[in-house]
């Protein structure tokens, strides 16, 4: 497995456990109300973590994993660079994960309403970079 795939898949596993931990805390809190410190006027502070739970599992776990495995197993070129434009794949990894973090923290920074938009924009940029990387590799094996 190439080093970039190792980064991507290890990241996806970290997101998996962090996302599961948040989900477990939310479900426990739903069934057996946790410490009042998690509550605040008008609702439950813990529920501010719901967007992070969704971001970390939908994008952090699943998309990072798909990117990592695709970078590893999509057909390679017969001449170097065998995996095509690696810079684009590295950029995709960086933008996607920066976007995930921004989107996840945005509910806690309500004074910065544009943060979630910025997070989504980084995610779009990351996916665009990965599409540009992967597009020429989706080919019959014999094509150079």
């Amino acid at each position, binding site marked *: *497995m*190439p*080093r970039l*795939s*190792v980064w991507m*898949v*290890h990241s996806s*596993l*970290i997101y*998996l*456990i962090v996302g*599961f*931990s948040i*989900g*477990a*805390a939310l*479900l*426990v809190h*739903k*069934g*057996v109300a946790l410490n009042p410190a998690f509550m605040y006027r008008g609702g439950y502070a813990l529920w501010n973590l719901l967007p992070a739970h969704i971001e970390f*599992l*939908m994008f952090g*776990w*699943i998309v990072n*994993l798909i990117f990592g495995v695709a970078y590893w197993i999509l057909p390679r070129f017969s001449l170097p660079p065998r995996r095509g434009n690696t810079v684009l794949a590295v950029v995709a990894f960086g933008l996607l994960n920066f976007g995930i973090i921004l989107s996840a923290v945005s509910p806690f920074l309500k004074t910065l309403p544009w943060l979630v938009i910025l997070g989504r924009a980084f995610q779009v940029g990351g996916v665009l970079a990965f599409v540009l990387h992967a597009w020429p590799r989706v080919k019959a094996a014999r094509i150079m």
Partner: protein
Amino acid sequence: MPVLTRWFIKASLIYFLAALFIGLLMAAGNIWDLSIFIRGIAPVYTHLFLLGWVSQLIFGVIYWMFPKASTQRPRGKEILAWSVFCLLNIGLILRVIAEPIFSYNPSVLLGWMLMISAILQWLAGLIFVINTWGRVKVR
């Protein structure tokens, strides 16, 4: 394909069907009064789909196809991998039973079922990550 992968994939296919069936009921609920069946069921639908179907399918395929951990233990510790399957499915089924009823008729028993479900699913994720981490390596 290892036996455990077959269990993961077949279970994931059953959850896929179950999720789609619930989605069908939720859609039909817009026309007919199906509230007795679909009250509080939206989180169950989401988790059947994304955890029961998508993530469980991925768990099974990773267990099968990722690089070998070592020659002695190519797929990590088998007992850990089986425990992931059991914990995940018991936890998810507990949730499917308890969460919709809890949403309109909360009780201490159902609350504890949700807590146990959360802990079982969390343990499944943790053990999966522990057992898979070493197989993700530069060749």
